[in-house]
């Protein structure tokens, strides 16, 4: 079966100080089937959010996608007209943002912000749109939705606002939702609620999800597959169990080892030495080689994707053994 989303060699560049483009997203490829959940994991600055915005066609100027294809249901979005992309946004590809305190317009009523999204994509009467908005709020578990439609965002808590954002994203039953760390700004108990709510809704409607996060624990609990990003590239991807249990790339390996767990209590927490290099001074070849203890001369060349389209890593010296 044809995948819902097939990203091939996507490059997103921002103009650098010296005039040459800085690659925030550097030649990434991945696939996503209908109903599948992909965890896109990486540190800040690894390019995971830029990947999400590239898929949406919402890269801040002057950045832009300079190479590659985004095949969505067989159609290349990179080549699509702006109006075509607008028509898909919110309707077939939706997005939930990181900070719910910032995503809703402070001076517009909640109801307006929901119904305008309906009016943007279909011919619908005001009354019908309001009814749909009310249903949408009820669906994400907001009490007395009828009154809440007339409220302003500042009258909602952070968790409630994120529910509203999710309701807006789910409004048109999209094929794909890009969730950009939607729980990072929330406190832990609310996080769990939002995650389970989100999971329930997307499962019910068969929505594919790209869940962008730096939190491996969240990914392991809800994703089918995982893609690990470093320096704008996907350095390892595969099924969630296989990647987390037998990581091949030294970076993934280090990332997993640095998660605190029951077993490591009392001992010093493992960490990856060094810091993420900035985009402007990304090393040639393997981006991770300056921090990698397995690096050799060979790593000055750029590693290919070793493996299949769905499960690969980019490392000349991968771990072969089962992670212990």
């Amino acid at each position, binding site marked *: 079966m044809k995948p819902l989303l097939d990203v091939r060699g996507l490059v997103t560049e921002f103009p650098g100080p010296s005039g040459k483009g800085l690659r925030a997203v550097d030649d990434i490829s991945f696939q996503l089937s209908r109903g599948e959940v992909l965890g896109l994991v990486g540190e800040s600055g690894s390019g995971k959010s830029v990947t999400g915005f590239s898929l949406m066609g919402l890269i801040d100027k002057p950045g832009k996608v300079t190479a590659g294809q985004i095949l969505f249901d067989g159609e290349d979005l990179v080549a699509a007209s702006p109006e075509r992309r*607008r028509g898909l946004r919110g309707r077939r590809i939706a997005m939930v943002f990181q900070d719910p305190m910032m995503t809703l317009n402070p001076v517009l009523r909640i109801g307006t912000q929901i119904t305008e999204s309906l009016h943007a994509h279909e011919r619908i009467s005001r009354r019908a749109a309001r009814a749909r908005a009310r249903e949408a709020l009820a669906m994400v578990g907001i009490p007395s939705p009828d009154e809440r439609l007339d409220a302003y965002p500042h009258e909602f808590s952070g968790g409630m606002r994120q529910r509203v954002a999710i309701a807006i994203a789910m409004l048109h039953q999209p094929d794909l939702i890009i969730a950009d760390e939607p729980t990072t700004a929330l406190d832990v108990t609310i996080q769990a609620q939002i995650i389970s709510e989100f999971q329930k809704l997307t499962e019910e409607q068969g929505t594919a999800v790209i869940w962008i996060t730096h939190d491996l624990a969240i990914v392991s609990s809800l994703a089918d597959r995982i893609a690990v990003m470093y320096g704008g590239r996907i350095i390892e991807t595969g099924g969630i169990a296989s990647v987390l249990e037998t990581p091949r790339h030294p970076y993934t390996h280090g990332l997993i080892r640095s998660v605190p767990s029951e077993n490591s209590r009392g001992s010093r927490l493992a960490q990856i030495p060094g810091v993420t290099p900035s985009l402007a001074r990304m090393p040639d070849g393997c981006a991770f080689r300056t921090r990698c203890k397995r690096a050799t001369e060979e790593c000055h060349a750029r590693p290919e994707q070793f493996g299949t389209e769905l499960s690969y890593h980019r490392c000349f010296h991968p771990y072969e053994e089962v992670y212990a």
Partner: protein
Amino acid sequence: MLTALIRRAIQAIFVILAMTVIVFIGINVIGNPVDILINPDLNQAERARVVEHLGLDLPLWQQYLHFLQGLLHGDFGDSFVYNRPALGVIMERFPATLELALSAMFIAIVVGLPLGLYAGLYPERLSSRLIMSGSILGFSLPTFWVGLMFILLFAVQLGWLPSNGRGETVGFLGAGWSFLTRDGLAHLFLPALNLALFKTSLVLRLTRAGVQEVLPQDFIKFARAKGLQEHRVVLVHLMKNLMIPVVTILGLEFGSLIAFSVVTESIFGWPGMGKLIIDSINLLDRPVIVAYLMMMVVLFVMLNFIIDIAYTLLDPRVRLDGGN
């Protein structure tokens, strides 16, 4: 709301009282009106009679108390020059100034807002840079000089527009208005443009700054992620946030337009309050000066209150009485 209103009214009274004290003392320092107003050929007895008639023989504090007493009866005293109630003299001139200020404000908004929006949305375009450079001129060229240049160019050289007076007026709402006739409009155009120049630059730069501040916010991106048409993102999501600072400043500036139209009125021979107050200061016509300044204070206090109300309408997060 009502308590806020009453509190404002009480504050206003104190401000006005403080103001009258300052003006009374200040005016006494400037000079003695007797020297200017009274015919030097009069003999001593006649002279004493006039001084007594004007109430200028009393010590300053008694003059002030007399003034306050009159104020309680709605009497601002009679103009030394016109020998009529000072307030009446001012109110006769008020429509002319109001008309000039409103016209200038209209020009500032109609020209400044769209240009500022354009310059903010497309900052990299050459036309935007030209607009911004132009606004620097509007800011820094002195009003009187620009006014003289306007007269030189449009009235003297080209002979397109008249440079003096209000032209033909039409009675409406108990006052004469220039903008209702072709001739009046021609007379109004140059002084209004002259007065508007600074405000236009102000509105323009304020709008542009607002655009640049609001545009990068998440809620704008989220609005786009919903698939809204660009005109809705700009005209609703952007503009509603933008208008909050613009309305605040414009409201305050309107007061200053009325109060400081002195220069423009003098240059273009516009028979408004500004010209009156300059003449009154030259002749030391104390009652008119005091009444005028009091009127300005009342105007500013009222404008502030109107702005506060407009503010609550524009920004749902703000409430006058601090929460519901």
